[in-house]
């Protein structure tokens, strides 16, 4: 027999001034199931909660209705009061008579009073169908997977590992370091990129809590938050990392030359190589596509010169598995290919390069010894044109968004050019200068004043060759005149774009991505590092274009999220999840389609009791379910229900008025 207690709050004058609270109490008492009803000045106060606790015991109440402010405000408070009285907290219902009645009908006390009574009647009706619910406890595997070993992945891995949580760091190339390792100096301080990055890379390699898996890729992710299982492919490196000392004899003697990806193809590397001198781990790998031994079975020089006998041409890809509880995706970005800019002669003129190529050239450890040169004839350029927004902010040929970092690094490039070639001049075509960041505007000003770079406001429309010069034509909108710059070298600030396989990775992980392939955060403002899938977090440019400080901040934020997730041995989860009544389930799998979290899978059960034949039914993973109820509404046979918002509860509310 149901025994409902109703507690109506005055909320000081907030409710009492516009609703006749005693009348509401009297009205509530008329409801059959209500065995106790009372009002009080502040229900949420300690004495108010005490009244609830006492009444539960004294009147043997089976469910509680509090008529007060919005449940979004104090539902948790009152639930706790129930628990304290030894009652299941989910037997509470809140009637929102403040936000939904007294505050919005201040001119009509009678109507507000009637409405409040109705709201209480609805809450009482709903509570009749309330059931005891228990928070779901999910065990947690306290190990994190970090995908991508750029600055984002490095920072996330170090922060998590420093909290003594084991980390598996997967990097697809032979060394960690990412794009930041390719940079020369960084804005707005002109710190040497390598100097600040390499110590962190070394920390990663030596950290007792980090398992570094270079030259590896994630193949498969199964499970749910706290309980993921990941399959990782360790690509065959043909070098035994355990015995290799990284002496370098092999790559010095290797006869095969291949364009060097790390230096943007400006120089050559060998078929057995370590991408750059400060690589971590500093062990070479054999590039199977180009090694003549692996292609034709001829050569074998590296094996001959290796004193440790670390070369193993028979090595195969290896697939390993790890159990993890959370994932940080930090796969970074690629540069957008400027080929669609045919009017710039991209691909036809060697002396048009991308910003990252320029970055490698001015890098002290770069292929040209830190001096920019013209790829066509090796001469040092005097007049250099930088073009911003190549691909960015261009719906027609490129992408809609602003790449965020180009304004800053172009200012930096002007400075670096000025430092490396004193008698040079930079011409910068821009549309807007976007320098929002600490010390950024000051940095741009410094670049403009110190280098006297010519800033021209306009998009370049055409580049053509005249003699050995490139003629760059654009409008300087500030004077409304078309200008033509005679350039030795043109540097395109091409857009920041996700790797083309980023969307494949997203599908593999079961997270969403936007039309470009950037991975989507759960909420653009309030949950910027989480994905919609619990336990998967985003760091760095894989989510959107970012500069280094922002990337590092986001990486640390993911680490905080991971540590929070792993704070207990189990995770507690709201019990408001869907359940399937397999007796009714017809196995149509409509619910599988609508579930935004892939929380529903199918299972096969005997057709009848003891039957050998089987049928397929839906199965909800309550660890993954977020309780939206899409599956409940789509279910044709009404086999699914959502705890806390069951069909019965809602229908009770509807028919109670």
């Amino acid at each position, binding site marked *: 027999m149901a025994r409902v207690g109703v507690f109506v709050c005055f909320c000081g004058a907030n409710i009492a001034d516009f609703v006749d609270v005693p009348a509401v109490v009297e009205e509530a008492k008329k409801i059959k199931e209500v065995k106790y009803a009372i009002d009080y000045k502040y229900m949420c106060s300690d004495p108010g909660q005490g009244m609830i606790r006492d009444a539960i015991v004294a009147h043997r109440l089976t469910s509680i209705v509090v008529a007060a402010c919005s449940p979004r405000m104090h539902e948790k408070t009152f639930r706790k009061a129930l628990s304290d009285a030894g009652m299941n907290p989910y037997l509470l219902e809140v009637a929102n008579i403040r936000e939904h009645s007294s505050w919005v009908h201040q001119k009509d006390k009678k109507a507000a009073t009637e409405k409040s009574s109705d709201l209480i009647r609805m809450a009482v009706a709903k509570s009749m169908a309330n059931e005891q619910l228990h928070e779901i406890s999910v065990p947690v595997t306290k190990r994190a997977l970090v995908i991508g070993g750029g600055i984002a992945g490095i920072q996330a891995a170090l922060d998590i590992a420093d909290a003594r949580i084991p980390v598996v760091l997967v990097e697809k190339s032979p060394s960690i370091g990412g794009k930041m390792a390719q940079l020369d100096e960084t804005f707005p301080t002109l710190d040497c990129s390598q100097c600040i990055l390499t110590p962190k890379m070394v920390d990663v390699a030596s950290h007792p809590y980090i398992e570094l898996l270079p030259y590896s890729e994630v193949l498969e992710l199964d499970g749910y938050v706290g309980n993921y299982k990941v399959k990782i492919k360790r690509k065959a490196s043909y070098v035994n990392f355990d015995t290799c000392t990284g002496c370098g004899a092999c790559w010095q003697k290797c*006869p*095969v*030359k*291949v364009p060097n990806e790390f230096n943007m193809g400006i120089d050559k590397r060998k078929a057995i190589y370590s991408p750059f001198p400060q690589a971590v781990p500093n062990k070479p790998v054999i590039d199977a*596509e180009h090694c*003549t031994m692996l292609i034709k079975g001829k050569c074998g020089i590296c094996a001959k010169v290796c004193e440790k006998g670390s070369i193993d041409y028979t090595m195969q890809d290896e697939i390993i598995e790890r159990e993890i509880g959370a994932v940080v995706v930090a796969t970074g970005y690629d540069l957008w290919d400027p080929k669609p800019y045919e009017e710039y*002669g991209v691909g036809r003129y060697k002396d048009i390069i991308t910003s990252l190529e320029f970055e490698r050239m001015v890098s002290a450890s770069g292929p040209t010894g830190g001096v920019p040169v013209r790829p066509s004839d090796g001469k040092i350029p005097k007049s250099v044109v930088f073009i911003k927004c190549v691909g960015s902010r261009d719906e027609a040929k490129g992408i809609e968004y602003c790449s965020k970092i180009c304004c800053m690094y172009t200012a930096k490039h002007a400075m670096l050019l000025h430092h490396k070639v004193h008698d040079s001049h930079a011409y910068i075509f821009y549309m807007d200068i976007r320098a929002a960041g600490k010390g950024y505007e000051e940095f741009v000003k410094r670049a403009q004043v110190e280098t006297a770079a010519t800033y021209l406001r306009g998009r370049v429309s055409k580049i*053509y060759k005249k003699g050995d010069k490139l003629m760059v034509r654009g409008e300087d909108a500030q004077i409304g005149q078309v200008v033509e710059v005679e350039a030795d070298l043109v540097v395109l600030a091409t857009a920041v774009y996700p790797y083309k396989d980023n969307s494949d990775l997203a599908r593999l992980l079961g997270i969403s991505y936007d039309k470009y392939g950037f991975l989507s955060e759960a909420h653009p403002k309030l949950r910027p590092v989480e994905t919609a899938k619990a336990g998967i977090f985003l760091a760095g440019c894989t989510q959107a274009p970012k500069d280094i400080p922002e990337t590092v901040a986001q990486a640390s934020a993911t680490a905080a999220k991971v540590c929070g997730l792993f704070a207990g041995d189990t995770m507690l989860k709201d019990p408001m999840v869907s359940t399937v009544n397999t007796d009714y389930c017809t196995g149509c799998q409509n619910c599988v389609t609508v579930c935004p979290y892939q929380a529903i899978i199918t299972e096969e059960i005997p057709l009848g009791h003891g039957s050998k034949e089987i049928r397929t039914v839906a199965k909800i993973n309550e660890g993954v379910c977020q309780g939206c109820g899409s599956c409940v509404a789509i279910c044709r046979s009404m086999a699914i229900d959502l705890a806390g918002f069951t069909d019965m509860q809602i229908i009770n509310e509807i028919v109670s008025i």
Partner: protein
Amino acid sequence: MTKLTYFPGCSAHGTSEEFDSTLKLVMKSLDVEMEELPDWNCCGATSAHVMTENLALALPLRNLVLAEKLSNKTMGIACASCYSRMKSTKVEMDNHPELAKRINSTIIEEGEYQGSVDVKSMLQFFYEDFGTEAIAEKVTYPLQGLKIACYYGCLLTRPKAITQFDSPEYPMSMDNIVESLGATATPFDFKTECCGASFSISDTEIVLSLSGTILEMAKESGAHLIAVACPLCQSNLDMRQPDIEKKNGTKYDMPVMYITQLMALAFGYPVQDLKPSKHIVPIEQALSHIGEEIETPEVKKKPKKAVQAESEVE
């Protein structure tokens, strides 16, 4: 034998007679029967669309409707302006039924537009319906040694949404045809810059300035002559060349020939058939380069394997 409806355009019977006559020779060699569109009218370029909206579509539409009465699937258009007007009209008519109805009402007697005939420029026809290999097969007199700057002008490849042919910025179709004739196409950055078009008569200053740059850049590219596929381009670059030279104080000596003239020559027709007398800038000097050794003996190494294309072994 391929059959083709032929729309010559006003200039084919006027300023660009040599385009028309060599086109016919080339088509004969390629075994194409050209059926001139009976009773065709001027497409209205460029005045119609400058001044009015409806006539700009109505004039080309009449030709499209007339062409549908013939059994040929494609209408080949010699003049680039006519091609552009005709193709734009076709695209507008195909995509806006409401508008199509309105414009069609101006030519009720000719009939209703069906959209059954494809419209192509002659360059597009050569490139898409024959291809460079088929053209190369017909060559009996290779134009080896001749360096040619291919000039497309605005309308053969632009706007991309209308023409759906080649690149609007750096097209290569004519260059490839020229190469298949044995000649060398020079890297020419101004191949799609405007020559000044219809301002030829109304505002000559503009034409002298724009065409001047094109001539200068063609010279810069090392070309002996410019190849074109548009009568208006030809007339601006050729007829106005002495004026441009006077204005700029330089001598270009840059003959401007139709691609069909070059094709006819390579297909074995005598120079006389190209009607050299029609040219203001004489073509004979340029043509004398035929047979010269190619200066850059850059032997193209054919990579045996993809592997070696990228990497090299010491």
